[in-house]
């Protein structure tokens, strides 16, 4: 079941996706909702960013993660207005 966010914004170039295994609780939200199916879970539920090349930089995984375990790299510079 592939689900997509109604209005996600394709935003940035992502070279690498860091998943903090110490913080991740294996809830599966990133796996289920990434519009490009970038993530897999192994037999133990551990999250692997398996297809980083497919990532469109929508930032959904990074923001959905309840455990602040996902960081898209390079980190985005925030413009303060």
């Amino acid at each position: 079941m592939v689900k997509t966010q109604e209005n996600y914004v394709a935003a940035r170039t992502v070279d690498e996706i860091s998943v903090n295994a110490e913080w991740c609780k294996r809830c599966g939200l990133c796996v289920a909702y990434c519009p490009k199916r970038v993530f897999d879970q192994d037999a133990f539920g551990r999250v692997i960013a398996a297809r980083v090349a497919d990532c469109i930089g929508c930032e959904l995984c990074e923001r959905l993660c309840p455990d602040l375990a996902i960081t898209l790299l390079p980190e985005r510079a925030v413009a303060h207005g």
Partner: protein
Amino acid sequence: MAVQDYIRKRFFPHIWCAGCGHGTVLNALLRSVEALGLSKDELVMVSGIGCSARISGYVDFHTLHTLHGRALAFATGVKMGRPDLKIICPLGDGDALAIGGNHFIHAARRNIDVTTIVLNNQIYGMTGGQFSPLSGCDVNATTAPYANIDPAFDTVNLATASGATFVARTTTFHVHELEKYLTRAIAHRGFSVVEVLSQCPTHFGRRNNQSDAVEMLDHFRQQTVARGAKRSRERPDLMQRGIFVEEERPEYCEQYDALVAKASAAGNGTNNGGAAS
């Protein structure tokens, strides 16, 4: 400042269950604060008691973890003492509108400059799944084993009628919207309320045929609609998301300062023969 610089990393991984929506609200809040370019020293988080209230332990702002239902009373005190600081109150649905309902309506009526986030998981998470005034009819809870017969408050209508000058609602599925509303709410001068439908897989999902966080977010996606969208007219049964109120009205601390200045200018009011005191 990077998002991770706003948290107390030593307390991570946090205490919330796998898939708990409260973590997603924390995530969005940090990004809002970062987008506004606020420093940790100008932010105060005041929370009550509940799983939601635990947020105050994780942010590296000035923080107060107070009493169940009473966060807005403490927040009022902090804001009156230090009107220059930004105050954020994350409240659970029970915390905000059961035991804390009276504080909520009066803080809104005064239009004190506090940002209130109602983390609505429709249940008392911390104490094991009792229904709250936001559960609504037909919800199953430990205290409603044959389903709840209490209708729910509509947080948006309640906040609006009470006088809140910024009122918005979204869900933990709509993360970009969530960050945007929190940013607008924090920047707003006056009492702002952002209701966020947040998932509690452990106590709500488990009792209400929603097996995990993934399914609960799908529910938020299907059961809500953007305010003003064509679909919102076709489906009046769906809950509306959006900004419902954004207006200017005199803020409480400003009114208080103005009153103090006026009273000082008029003197102490005792008639001592016309001599200026």
